[in-house]
């Protein structure tokens, strides 16, 4: 709160006008429309629509496809988060030991942040391409027949790897910052108490890193759920047999390709509730910090 302020009454509204106009036209109004449409059903020609109450939501719950999508999203989010955070933490801990080469390694590790999810998808799709890709060739040598076009598992691995790869740099930067914030004196004290490097990490560093870890957990889940549309669309397009059809992809597919506006709107509403929950969690816990 500022002690001294300007007294104008009209000026602040003029300053806010552009932001509020865009927010209203492109955010609030469409969100309202989505909520409205989620209670309506359009006829086959898309001309008339009638109020159907919660029918669209009930249809979702009854739809094996949607249930599958929920499950796929959960598996996908957990795998991406675990893989990306695990690798990043390992790299961050390694960099934390460095003195002179920190900057060089950081530069070499942060740039994938700048690669678009869709481009990341294309790159990994190429590497894993069953006919000419590098990885299937290597896997074939060790006796694994890779084919993400027919194998559900392979397809999931592909999208998880591509999505986790892009997120490594982000997690890495925050872990490095978190590690630097752990007071050296604590680790020194533990060393004097006779704890070796591994013990020190698990007894001192990792617990003190928990605010960063928790924050990244939420951010990574949000990333995996909402920002990986490009990865999916550029690689598997949700297939094979719905194996990688995460929720945001399904909303798009049902709405634009399937033209099922009511169902797509109901899915949008479910997603909004999810984002709201995640945002609240992030603000509640991250603001107050998981601290000792």
């Amino acid at each position, binding site marked *: 709160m500022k002690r001294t302020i300007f007294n104008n009454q009209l000026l*602040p509204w003029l300053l806010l006008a552009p932001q509020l106009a865009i927010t209203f036209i*492109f955010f609030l109004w469409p969100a309202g429309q989505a909520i409205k449409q989620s209670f309506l059903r359009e006829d086959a020609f898309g001309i008339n629509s009638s109020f159907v109450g919660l029918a669209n939501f009930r249809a979702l719950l009854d739809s094996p496809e949607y249930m599958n999508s929920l499950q796929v999203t959960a598996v996908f989010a957990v795998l991406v988060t675990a893989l990306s955070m695990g690798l990043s933490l390992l790299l961050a801990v390694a960099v934390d030991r460095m003195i002179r080469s920190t900057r060089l390694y950081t530069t070499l*590790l942060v740039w994938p942040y700048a690669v678009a999810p869709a481009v990341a998808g294309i790159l990994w799709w190429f590497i894993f391409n069953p006919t000419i890709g590098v990885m299937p060739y290597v896997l074939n040598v060790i006796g694994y027949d890779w084919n993400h076009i027919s194998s559900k598992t392979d397809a999931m691995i592909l999208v998880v790897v591509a999505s986790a790869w892009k997120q490594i740099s982000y997690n890495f930067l925050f872990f490095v910052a978190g590690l630097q914030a752990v007071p050296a004196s604590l680790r020194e004290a533990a060393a004097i108490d006779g704890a070796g490097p591994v013990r020190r990490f698990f007894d001192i560093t990792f617990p003190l890193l928990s605010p960063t870890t928790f924050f990244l957990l939420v951010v990574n889940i949000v990333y995996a759920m909402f920002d990986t549309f490009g990865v999916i669309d550029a690689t598997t397009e949700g297939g094979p047999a719905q194996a990688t059809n995460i929720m945001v992809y399904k909303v798009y597919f049902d709405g634009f390709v399937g033209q099922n506006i009511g169902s797509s709107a109901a899915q949008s509403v479910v997603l909004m509730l999810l984002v709201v929950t995640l945002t609240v969690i992030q603000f509640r816990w991250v603001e107050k910090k998981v601290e000792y």
Partner: protein
Amino acid sequence: MIENRPGLNLLAHLVLVLGVVVVALPVWVAFVASTHSATDFMSGTVPMWPGPHLVENYSKMLDSGVSTSGTPPVARMMLNSLIMALAIAVGKIAISILSAFAIVYFRFPFRGLAFWCIFITLMLPVEVRIVPTFQVVAGLGLLNSYAGLSIPLIASATATFLFRQVFLTMPDELVEAARIDGAGPMKFFRDILLPLSRTNMAALFVILFIYGWNQYLWPLLVTTDAQYYTIVAGIKRMADAVDGLPQWHLVMATAVLAMLPPVAVVIGMQKLFVKGLVETEK
């Protein structure tokens, strides 16, 4: 470091080198592929070292593109991406800094409501309200236009919060001194606030430029006219089209070109990039 353990240091270097290799692998493969000719892929596997067709492939893509895919030359798509990324970054910064100024330095009725309207955009990513947002943009006749590509994405709670935070940490006495020195609100904004927020703006610009450049779903929806394709959205169309006749070298050249500007920004402005990343998550 607490004790000197050469073994552990070696292990750390090993982990990092491996990490760097894994992180760089896909891009290396793409780059190598983009320097070969179509026939080099017929053998069944991708070569691991660059070939002689770099200049040929890249100039072909930049100048004319793959006509069968219906995409314009890559140079054109890069220009579109640049326009969209700049419009989004500049637009977001401009409207956010103005609204943060209004919220921090004025008291007016419904100030709280305005603040919440902005806050709520945080919870409404494009992906979850995609169909109705598309309908609104179509209704306004903004399909296939730069305005349609950028304006719906420039409302930003994150940027507004960032500037709000920056302004709140500025001492009260600064605005008091300015008032006594005869500066009205807009003069104070221009002479004091803007110059003092310069580095924050630059850091935010780096993050938002990458955000704008990397947009995928939105440009895919609002552009049907090839003249407005952006490179990130266009590359998928190109890959789809060449699926029957795999022109991998050309797709990968496009992928490299699509990565180049944002990656260059991150590496060239690493300090600002890290600052922006950390600040926007506060």
